[in-house]
């Protein structure tokens, strides 16, 4: 069978290209070049065309499944019970909106593949359905990474479903796999420490050390020794003391608040990043280092540079890859997801049967700003589960500063809530 003829002919009329000026022969070529799977389906969801990526994913060649109902080609988990066009038909709509859903497919080689399907109806000028484009993204790598990242399910796992977190989780595999220096930004409580650990765990250095450095203010000489080691110290002058960088050899070092590091040490860090070697205090010979650096700051790094708290050259060196963790108030739909997630965790921890939140409590919790971000949200749920005697968390089980946030309910808000709001307002 001539595959080109078999697949080229049906597409143009279905996609209404006659008046577009686009050579219809170009369409299969364009679709084939796309890096994600595309299936073109007729009005009855029979297969017209599979592009190369989808051929690889399903194991079927486009020509051999022409005319076959898509559910027998894609074999998606969404095909048998939640097929979007069938759901539309049941709802009495002839044409449904573009819709995405995640699921799995089983390919010809009996392999289960995690995918995201987006069904895009292609309409004519009168709004009639010409065909449907099913776009299928292979999520295997993402799911594998998610599984690794959330391996330690519990209060310390990275979770999130909002678009910002989804984007973050999507690019993490590539960032983790690279050896690039990473700068993590985000307010306090957003999960920078967890993300740094996750980056290490998902990296080729995962079996080596992960060393966290909190450059709290301390005498510079002491910090120097703490970070870069000492050639010999104490009564036994031959016993060198390794610094954090030496301890992280072949692994990852995480500098939790880079701007807390004095400028002199920032300069040494810059040299270390450039030369990949460090000379311990009191030593003469530099020591080769193979360490990946992940740095974080809870403040705006550009502002830190302007304020002279962060060296400009170091900032640009660290900023090779920058990952920003959004505050909870910008995570939209994630709030309810996080509430439910932590409810499950703490219900299990305290051995309670919890059904959920009352609508009033959920409304208050959804409206709250969470200046302490995920850390505060997590603690808040822990508190609520602890004090709730029943199986539904109500308004009475929430901390006062959350209960009294609603206008009109708390003319005399508690000092803690006031302080939190004021702090939040200042930060804004």
């Amino acid at each position: 069978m001539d595959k080109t003829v078999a697949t080229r002919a049906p597409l143009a009329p279905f996609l209404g290209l006659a008046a577009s000026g686009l050579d219809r022969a170009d369409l299969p070529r364009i679709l084939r070049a796309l890096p994600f799977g595309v299936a073109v389906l007729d009005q009855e969801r029979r297969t017209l065309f599979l592009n190369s990526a989808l051929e690889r994913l399903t194991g079927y060649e486009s020509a051999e499944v022409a005319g076959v109902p898509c559910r027998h080609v894609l074999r998606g988990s969404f095909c048998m019970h939640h097929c979007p066009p069938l759901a539309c038909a049941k709802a009495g709509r002839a044409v449904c909106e573009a819709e995405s859903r995640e699921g799995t497919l089983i390919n010809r080689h009996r392999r289960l593949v995690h995918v995201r399907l987006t069904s895009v109806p292609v309409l004519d000028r009168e709004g009639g359905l010409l065909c449907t484009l099913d776009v299928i993204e292979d999520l295997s790598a993402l799911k594998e990474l998610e599984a690794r990242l959330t391996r330690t399910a519990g209060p310390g796992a990275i979770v999130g479903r909002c678009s910002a977190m989804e984007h973050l989780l999507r690019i993490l595999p590539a960032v983790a796999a690279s050896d690039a220096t990473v700068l993590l930004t985000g307010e306090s409580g957003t999960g920078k420490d967890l993300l740094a650990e996750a980056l290490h765990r998902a990296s080729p250095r995962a079996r080596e050390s992960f060393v966290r450095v909190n450059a709290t203010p301390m005498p510079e000489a002491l910090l120097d020794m703490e970070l870069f080691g000492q050639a010999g110290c104490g009564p036994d002058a031959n016993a060198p003391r390794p610094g954090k960088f030496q301890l992280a050899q072949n692994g990852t070092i995480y500098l939790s608040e880079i701007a807390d590091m004095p400028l002199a040490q920032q300069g040494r860090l810059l040299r270390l990043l450039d030369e990949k070697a460090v000379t311990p205090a009191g030593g003469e010979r530099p020591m080769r280092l193979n360490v990946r650096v992940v740095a974080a700051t809870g403040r705006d790094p550009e502002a830190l540079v302007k304020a002279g708290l962060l060296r400009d050259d170091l900032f640009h060196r660290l900023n090779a890859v920058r990952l920003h963790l959004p505050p909870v108030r910008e995570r939209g739909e994630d709030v309810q997801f996080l509430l439910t997630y932590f409810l499950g965790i703490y219900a299990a921890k305290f051995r309670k049967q919890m059904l959920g939140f009352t609508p009033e409590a959920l409304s208050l919790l959804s409206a709250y700003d969470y200046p302490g971000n995920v850390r505060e949200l997590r603690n808040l749920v822990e508190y609520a589960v602890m004090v709730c005697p029943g199986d539904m968390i109500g308004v009475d089980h929430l901390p006062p500063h959350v209960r009294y946030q609603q206008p009109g309910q708390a003319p005399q808000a508690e000092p803690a809530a006031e302080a939190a709001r004021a702090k939040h307002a200042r930060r804004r």
Partner: protein
Amino acid sequence: MAKKILVTLYRDEVAPRFDLASEVLLVTVDAEGGEVRRQELVLAHASADDLCDLILDREVAVVITGGMEDEHYHYLRWKRLDVLDGVAGLAEDALARHLRGELESGDILFPRGRHE
């Protein structure tokens, strides 16, 4: 000797996926291939593991189904069943074709190439 053939169902088709099938057709045929008994079973829920248990409990000899994970395929093969997976088509067509000795794994029985 009679043998039992199980076809996973989705409406009147072979179910596209073994693990998501919630109905099955169980047909008993005699040594000549004549149909002796036919049952349609509605399962409590779709589960590949439960379906494997059912298949073994009912002493099924042949399974006809759509897409199937490697693990379940090899499990049933290890239990000495004939597994014809990856079959796409109407259930009755698939069954008839099997009884004629013409059905193989991966067969697509729907009309194809209708737009060429």
